């Protein structure tokens, strides 16, 4: 019935395709450059014209990198990202469900406050936050880089959007069948919002892994740094030793990029769900 969609070769289509390819190269280039650069000798990394592909690949940069506590940093980054992920998913799923499905005093107001707080830059509360974690005695521990980020209500917002899709009849049916509130949540709600939790989990893991700012103000001693911080510190120390820096950048980027590629579908869904309805 439908006429077959034929891509007409209008000048606009051709030009836009060419432009798309050019910008694609611009976006992929840094990534390519970091990975290949990490295998170049120091003097090659700054040579002009650039050596587009490493001709004498070397592992020297990685050897220098692992003289730093890079593995400890990696572990720290992983712990920060993983624990943030678990906590955010836990608190957000519970809160998102009741905000979407229950009518209770203060519910609308609370949700409004959550949304307003999302617009606030975390950095506005920087000084009080540091003072708070110092007063509670966990400044310069991983907890200081994790807990404040859990308070940020994006996850609650996302899970509320997701929970809206649960049919109310199912909740009512469960109630008639004699389920208590916790059973309704555990047996009916949880299985239905699983895709949402998945999306939130990936999203949180990636943002926590890359949350340079929070880590910067919360962690100070060299042993406690995360990968991001560690490499930033090395940028100051190694200045223009791009080889080592690129080895560090590769080491910090590869795991997270792999995670992104594997879970891209659920991640994309999370970003889209969190935006606008309809």
């Amino acid at each position, binding site marked *: 019935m439908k006429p077959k969609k034929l891509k007409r070769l209008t000048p606009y289509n051709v030009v836009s395709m060419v432009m798309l390819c050019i910008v694609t190269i611009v976006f992929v280039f840094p990534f390519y450059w970091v990975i290949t650069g990490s295998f170049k000798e120091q003097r090659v990394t700054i040579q002009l014209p650039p050596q587009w592909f490493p001709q004498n690949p070397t592992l020297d940069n990685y050897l220098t990198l692992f003289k730093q506590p890079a593995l400890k940093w990696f572990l720290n980054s992983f712990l920060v990202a993983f624990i943030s992920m678990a906590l955010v998913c836990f608190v957000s799923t519970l809160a998102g469900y009741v905000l979407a499905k229950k009518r209770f005093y203060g519910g609308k107001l609370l949700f409004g406050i959550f949304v307003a707080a999302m617009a606030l830059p975390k950095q506005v509360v920087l000084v009080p936050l540091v003072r708070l974690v110092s007063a509670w005695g966990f400044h310069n521990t991983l907890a200081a880089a994790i807990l404040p980020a859990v308070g940020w209500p994006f996850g609650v917002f996302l899970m509320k959007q997701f929970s809206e899709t649960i049919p109310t009849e199912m909740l009512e049916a469960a109630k008639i069948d004699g389920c208590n509130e916790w059973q309704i949540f555990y047996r009916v709600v949880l299985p239905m919002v699983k895709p949402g939790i998945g999306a939130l989990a990936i999203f949180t893991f990636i943002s926590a892994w890359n949350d340079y700012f929070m880590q910067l103000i919360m962690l100070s001693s060299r042993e406690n740094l995360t990968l991001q911080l560690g490499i930033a510190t090395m940028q100051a120390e190694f200045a223009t030793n*791009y080889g080592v820096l690129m080895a560090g950048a590769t080491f910090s*980027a590869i795991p997270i990029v792999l995670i992104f590629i594997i879970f891209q579908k659920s991640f994309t869904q999370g970003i889209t769900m969190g935006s606008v309805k309809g």
Partner: protein
Amino acid sequence: MQQNKTVTKTGKRRRLGIRGRETLVSYLFMLPALLFFVAFVVGPILSGLYTSFFNYTARHNNFIGLGNYIELFQSEPFLKSLRNTVLLVIGVVPIIVLFSIFVSTIIYQKNPIIRSIFRGIFYLPVVTGTVAIVVVWKWIYDPLNGILNWALQAMGAIDQNIMWLGDKKYALLAIIVVLFTTSVGQPIILYVAALGNVDQSHIEAAQIDGATSWQVFRHIKWPAIMPTTLYVVVITTINSFQCFSLIQLLTGGGPNYNSSTIMYLVYEYAFKQSRFGYANAMGVILAIIIGVFSIIQFKFFGDKVEY
């Protein structure tokens, strides 16, 4: 819920009882989220607001009313940073919106694999993390060994090397370029999804009536993706206002505060100069600016968007 409107008096009382119970249950479910939210968001906001009225440093802590705010608006670093922050937002947000719409309109009808490859590519700089991205850009901008100066000289566009990050004419621009590449990932994902939801039958009907692709875009797609545009404008504005790590890692706000933003200045005053009250006052002003911007944007787009 509708049938409740017709219930008798006793029914009403019962309903309040149910709602009370629902409230209790709901707050129990909300408890963990609320604990974190109050402890790490609400509390610090209030405390930040409060201390912004104090001359609170490593040594002093005395009430000075609006003293910090008055000093701010007479301070050159702050005014420069304010100007830069506004320039950054005005410079980057429209380009992000136009660019993401451009890319999305090309890729949204491609087959799913090509679509997700492109989406992935534009999201790559976000996933990679600022620190790793900055390593490359530092080299690109490097005045002696960088590829940018080399390429421009090879093309004959410049005669001598430019200190991209150290020259007050270029530092902010250099930041804007990097900020742009790290900001388009999410808008593109959103636009691809939004364009995919545009009613295909409207588009086909218009095409049969002989509409050009520009007319189709202008009169069908653009209005349909308006809610997404609003959302994208709001989040990219907020993100650009908060641009910090790029500045801290690339220029340190320099030269002479010419690439500093309010966000960066907050950090510098709080952690390098230990002027906590002053830094908090700056944070409060930033929060107000972001709030005003968001309200303006909602008013501006508001009548065209249905929630």
